[in-house]
């Protein structure tokens, strides 16, 4: 089974040289720490940065230099700063090659819900609806089940949607799964996790074809 860091490390293996990548808040943010050596990848933050760098050194933080999670950050050489219109032009126009975001629910047709629990929590969608509606390559990073042990990989989302038929791959603490016309296709098992464990934790249609390798 993977912890949050493990999920981030697994997603980092999806990165390709030359990609521009948008990382959501939470587990996705951790992906930036595990870019494979030798790969050039630029991180976009939708409040207006390309080439987002590490956190600033203590005492060098700048209130005018934050990321979409409102954290103080730095910018790498070769980075650029722009306004919100340009930032979402990049996103909507398909110039960002990979978007990684968290979710409360994902359906086996690729719908995602992550912005609202009616009557309980309404923080807003931020940039998530633009991101999921625009990019071809959406990876969801999340725990396979919620705090009450209920599956987050569903036949249909029960919460208000963020986007429809948009998720390409889901990486959880238990597995890597792709969205296919027939449901979640199991690609890899997390270390020590059996196909049965995954089946038990997945409410949506699960496709298991042949031997499912354990993540290396």
């Amino acid at each position, binding site marked *: 089974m993977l912890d949050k860091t493990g999920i981030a490390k697994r997603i980092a293996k999806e990165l390709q040289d030359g990609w521009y990548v948008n990382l959501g808040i939470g587990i996705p943010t951790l992906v930036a720490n595990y870019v494979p050596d030798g790969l050039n990848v630029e991180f976009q933050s939708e409040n207006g940065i390309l080439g987002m760098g590490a956190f600033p050194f203590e005492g060098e933080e700048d209130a005018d230099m934050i990321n979409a999670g409102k954290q103080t950050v730095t910018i790498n050489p070769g980075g650029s700063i722009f306004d919100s219109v340009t930032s979402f032009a990049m996103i909507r126009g398909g110039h960002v090659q990979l978007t990684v975001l968290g979710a409360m629910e994902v359906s086996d047709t690729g719908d995602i819900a992550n912005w609202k629990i009616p009557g309980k929590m309404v923080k807003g969608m931020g940039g998530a*609806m633009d991101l999921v509606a625009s990019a071809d390559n959406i990876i969801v990073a999340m725990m396979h089940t919620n705090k009450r042990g209920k599956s987050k990989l569903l036949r249909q989302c029960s919460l208000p949607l963020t986007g429809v038929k948009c998720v390409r791959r889901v990486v959880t603490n238990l597995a890597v799964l792709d969205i296919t016309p027939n449901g979640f296709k199991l690609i890899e098992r997390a270390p020590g996790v059996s196909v049965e464990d995954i089946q038990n934790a997945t409410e949506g249609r699960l496709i298991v074809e042949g031997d499912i390798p354990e993540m290396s």
Partner: protein
Amino acid sequence: MNKVVANAEEAIKGIHDGMTLMLGGFGLCGIPENCISAMVNSGVTNLTCISNNAGVDDFGLGLLLQKKQIKKMISSYVGENDEFERQMLSGELEVDLIPQGSLAARCHAAGAGIPAFFTPAGYGTEVAEGKEVRYFNGKPHILEHAFHADFAIVKAWKGDRFGNLVFKGTARNFNPAMAMAGKITIAEVEEIVEPGELDPNFIHTPGVFIQRIFQGKDYEKRIEQRTVRPKA
């Protein structure tokens, strides 16, 4: 061209109860602190505020929420504010949540004379309810309309008396788009410089969009998430 006014109190003259305002900023970054304070003092009320976020409990737009001066918020993300949540759940505050990219584009569209445009963002969600859907290249899009505002209030780093503005770092965010969209746009800046001091080739917001400008004071620039690494 001299658009300079003395201070925030002068700048907000004409902002009346019930008006629609746009306010620049992302979280607490790049918000017009001086004008917000002046509006808290003026007591103007029943405002509709278009702003990406709603501040925190005791800063930014949170100050206007505390005093119940805001009737309706149009935003993309409103976490980080307990008083906001309380007013929203109790029904005291109307809230329209808009995808962030659509929010930016709808402000820009107003300033650019584009009354409506199609975007994929929000298709199939609550955001699309009641909106026209049309397919382009086989992909569904929804029709979104421009947002207009009686006043837009933006915060820049430097500006001159023609209203030309330069922003610093990610404090730019929604400010340039909103600057274009106000019937009257107010810019508060950290420093007013002489015309010609800003390189004309590197002006973020041309002065044509600005009607009033003043040099703000005592910027707090509060940081929401101070994240640092130790010095090596």
